């Protein structure tokens, strides 16, 4: 036994001096990592991008499940019946009349409020005016508060329908009629433990934004809204109905909130189960019908390009991959830009878990009967809650209505890319401190010279000043493009601004000329800091908004890692133009997106626009500077 231990010790420690072996081992490890770092970096990039491509694959993901035991979804008998459907039809007829009369928002709100009052539910209206730099919005919300027969009124559930449907240019008449008929129906039962707040909001997003910010007393300065007169409790859960068509075939669920916040997954899972088992309505994400269920509409629904050979197209793996990818792309489109995918998303800010139930328009077979039953059963489930939804996941990727990815399965994609950037930054940082030079051997006084590594100082403060200046310029840029005068004349000013941004760094170039002799070149330290900063931004944003972090990582990792100055002028120009297009191209090539982002910032405080101006663009600008700084 002792001999074995001795042998192991010999292998680990060697026979010589303990410290010497330790140092040798450390040096060997250091040399190994250092010499393999470029390959390691490439490997990390490869793995990171492969992981991103792997996310939609059917190999990953697990079935959704209910985590909160109190919910008991779909365990109750529902009482919503054809009489209630008739009631909804009557409300619908009135609403259609209002539509045909081209009624104003005020008239509609007055009518809806009056209908609530006829039911014996206290109701009121709320006028509001929103001032954004592009236009002003005004409208009138109608809302009613049904006090719970069994609770203290400390908690409430919000049921809403906006007047305009979110996805198409249609009116959400049936959604509003459902809410009214539901109010009449819910009042007949004494088992409710939480207040119901019914909101018929004007417009698409602006009405609900006015209502909910007033409700929580956090009105933005550009909103003038009437105070709410009917009090209720803290809202825990909200369901929003969007039913634009005549009938529907599937129930679509929209769940993304502003600034990338997602509702607790239990809410989605409960509604999904209830819809399938109580309502008999299949559930999809968004309005994405599965092309495999509707072979006759495959060309319209599938995202598999036409050039893919038919044999591949028929493989179930490919079909599932394509369907999941379609859902994910839609999700990233909402989350990365911080947009709400419906009225529900505005509520997330106040810790309300909310989703939109979207009745995917079709010629049948479902209508008021199905949606009423789904709503009733869902509200019974919500009614069971003793505390806020907290058990299930807040960080997830839903790839289809019943499959999701836990955070551990998607987070590494962005983190690995971020690590690749961090390693490159550290590599560049070490590189900047050393240079190979010819040191004449003075003692021997011979011709032989040898290349040796010599240490040199690094211009840390200069690089930090450049980084500070670029981000400060980003703040200035953001301030400038959100000025009302600039927003209005966006089309004329953007190209001018783009050209100024293109020339300004070139004009500032002479400032960088003077680096102290013997120090490492500025570009090297700047690149090191640039990569470390980008890596930090990605890994920190990950938990807040994965889609944004992942998109940023995928966009920036390769351009930033491979930024370098060059001696030939044409190459310099090409590189500079590339980085400037990457960093500032949005000004001229995505004017509609810019307008929308600014609008979202002004109306809802979505920080996508400031993120781009203050974080993303300066990072790319630093890489652009790296490519034109003297070698």
């Amino acid at each position, binding site marked *: 036994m002792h001999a074995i231990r001795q042998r192991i010790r010999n292998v680990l420690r060697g026979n010589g001096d303990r*410290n010497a072996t330790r*140092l040798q081992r450390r040096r060997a490890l250091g040399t190994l990592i250092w010499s393999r770092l470029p390959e390691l970096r490439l490997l990390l990039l490869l793995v990171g991008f492969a992981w991103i491509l792997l996310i939609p694959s059917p190999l990953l993901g697990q079935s959704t499940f209910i985590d909160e035991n109190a919910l008991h979804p779909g365990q109750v008998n529902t009482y919503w019946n054809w009489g209630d459907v008739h009631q909804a039809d009557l409300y619908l007829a009135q609403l259609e009349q209002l539509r045909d009369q081209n009624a104003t928002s005020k008239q509609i709100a007055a009518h809806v409020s009056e209908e609530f009052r006829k039911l014996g539910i206290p109701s009121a209206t709320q006028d509001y005016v929103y001032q954004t730099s592009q236009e002003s919005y005004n409208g009138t919300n109608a809302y009613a508060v049904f006090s719970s027969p069994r609770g203290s009124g400390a908690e409430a559930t919000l049921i809403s329908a906006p007047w305009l449907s979110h996805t198409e240019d249609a009116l959400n008449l049936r959604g509003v009629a459902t809410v009214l008929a539901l109010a009449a129906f819910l009042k007949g039962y004494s088992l409710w433990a939480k207040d119901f707040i019914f909101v018929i909001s004007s417009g698409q997003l602006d009405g609900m934004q006015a209502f909910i910010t007033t409700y929580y007393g956090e009105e933005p300065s550009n909103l003038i809204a009437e105070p709410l007169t009917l009090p209720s409790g803290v809202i825990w859960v909200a369901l929003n109905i969007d039913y634009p068509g005549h009938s529907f075939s599937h129930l679509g669920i929209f769940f993304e909130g502003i600034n990338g*916040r*997602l509702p607790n997954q239990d809410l989605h899972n409960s509604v999904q189960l209830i819809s399938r088992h109580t309502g008999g309505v299949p559930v999809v994400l968004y309005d994405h019908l599965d092309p495999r269920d509707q072979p006759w509409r495959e060309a319209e629904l599938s995202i598999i390009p036409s050039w893919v050979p038919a044999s591949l197209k028929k493989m179930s793996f490919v079909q599932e991959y394509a369907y999941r990818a379609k859902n994910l792309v839609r999700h990233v489109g909402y989350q990365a830009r911080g947009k709400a995918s419906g009225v529900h998303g505005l509520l997330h*800010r106040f*810790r309300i878990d909310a989703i939109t139930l979207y009745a995917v328009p079709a010629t049948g077979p479902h209508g008021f009967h199905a949606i009423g039953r789904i709503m009733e059963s869902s509200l019974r489930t919500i009614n069971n809650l003793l505390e*806020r939804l907290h058990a299930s996941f*807040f*960080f997830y990727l839903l790839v289809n209505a019943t499959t999701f990815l836990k955070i551990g399965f998607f987070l590494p994609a962005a983190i690995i890319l971020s690590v690749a950037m*961090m390693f490159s930054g*550290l590599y560049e*940082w070490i590189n900047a401190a050393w240079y190979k030079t010819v040191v004449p051997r003075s003692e021997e006084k011979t011709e032989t010279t040898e290349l040796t590594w010599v240490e040199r100082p690094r211009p840390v*403060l200069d690089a930090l000043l450049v980084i500070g200046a670029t981000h400060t310029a980003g703040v200035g840029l953001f301030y400038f493009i959100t000025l009302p005068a600039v927003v209005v004349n966006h089309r004329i000013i953007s190209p001018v601004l783009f050209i100024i941004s293109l020339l300004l760094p070139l004009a500032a170039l002479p400032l960088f000329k003077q680096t102290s002799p013997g120090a490492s070149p500025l570009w090297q330290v700047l690149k*090191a800091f640039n990569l*470390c*900063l980008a890596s*930090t931004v990605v*890994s*920190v944003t990950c*938990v*807040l908004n994965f889609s944004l972090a992942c998109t940023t990582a995928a966009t920036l990792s390769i351009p930033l890692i491979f930024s370098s100055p060059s001696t030939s002028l044409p190459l310099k120009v090409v590189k500079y133009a590339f980085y400037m297009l990457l960093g500032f191209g949005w000004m001229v090539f995505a004017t509609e997106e810019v307008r929308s982002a600014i609008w979202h910032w002004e109306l809802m405080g979505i920080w996508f626009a400031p993120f781009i101006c203050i974080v993303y663009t300066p990072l790319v600008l630093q890489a652009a500077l790296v490519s034109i700084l003297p070698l």
Partner: protein
Amino acid sequence: MDNFKFEVVFPALILGRFLLALAPLPDSLKHDHQLTSPLTAYPRLQEGLYLFSQGIDPYSGGIFRHSPLYLAIFSTAIPLTKLTTAFLWTASDAVSAWALVRIWRARQRLSSSSRDALIATLYLINPYTFLPTLALSSSTFENTLLLLSVMFASEGQTSPSLLALAFLSQLSLHGMLLLVPVLLLLITDPISHLAAPRPFSASFKTLAFPAGEFFVYFSVLTFVSTLVCGSWAWVEQSWGAMVLLPDLTPNVGLWWYFFTEMFDHFRPFFLMVFSVHLLIYVLPLCIKFQHDMLYVVFLMAGVLATFKPYPTLSDPGLFLSMISLFPETYPHLRHPLVTALLHLHSALLLPLFHHLWLSQGTGNANFFYASTLVFGMSNGAALLDSVWSGLRVAVGRVPDGLEVVQE
């Protein structure tokens, strides 16, 4: 930075800071868990002052844990208004920065240097120090008193130094941990001996008088506090809190989460372990760095910033700003970029996870705790690297192919 004159930069920065303090800032800043602790929060100070003015014992409720000296000053001499608070807290930072510059000058035996502006700037624009000041956290005053005490000690002025230290120990009991290094600094000199260590030469006998002087100051201040308060109740509420940790409001330190998770019968034991843990650094540091007591004070600031029961961001802020006093150690730092990146990560993660837990509701306490661990790691990395480089200065540049080993 060398091009800027200290005489221009210093007043300009202070003016800027004063205007910033006057600006309409969100009230939530004063309640922020990262910028204030239960022992330093401004709203609690206001609460205590109000109770005091109403003739109610402010220490009876468990809300007010400031020293009675604050009650004495703010209820009589200086009423707290928007203007006076902005002035007082900014002035406190200005004095700190000034003291830091004077310490540097004493260490270099210069009457002014080109580095002065840089040192003052690093203290005044360090977000870790100026954000707690904007939040009106009383930790700002503690930093000032510490720096004043060290400044007087470096300049050989015994009584003012000990008085400042006595005041600091009144406000925060952990100031006592600096007593030994400050006393030793008084009988030695602040000049850098890091490159040429030597055995401690001064006579310990000369320590007796200053030590006695400190305890006289300390006792008088304790007595004054009791007079102000009218009873000894303040001792348990204010000093006791630093040892018994009665208030588990989240902060950037490492204690609160540990003790929220603890079974009650282990509590006294771990309170003892955590408190003694702070004590054990004093003597080893004093022995190892016996040639340079100023460096010991700096390292102790780092130890307190990392392991104190109720830290705010100003504690690590003080430690990080003090790094500017020791440029001779920079070439020997092992991983400055890694430390800086750790600090960058934790500075972003702390507010983010705090937001996820308490505002957005998608995270929980573990998120914020995890970020305080990262913060602890970054402070620890800075501290360890400072110890390393402080010792390595003496070895000097190691020729290629050779290594230094400690047996």
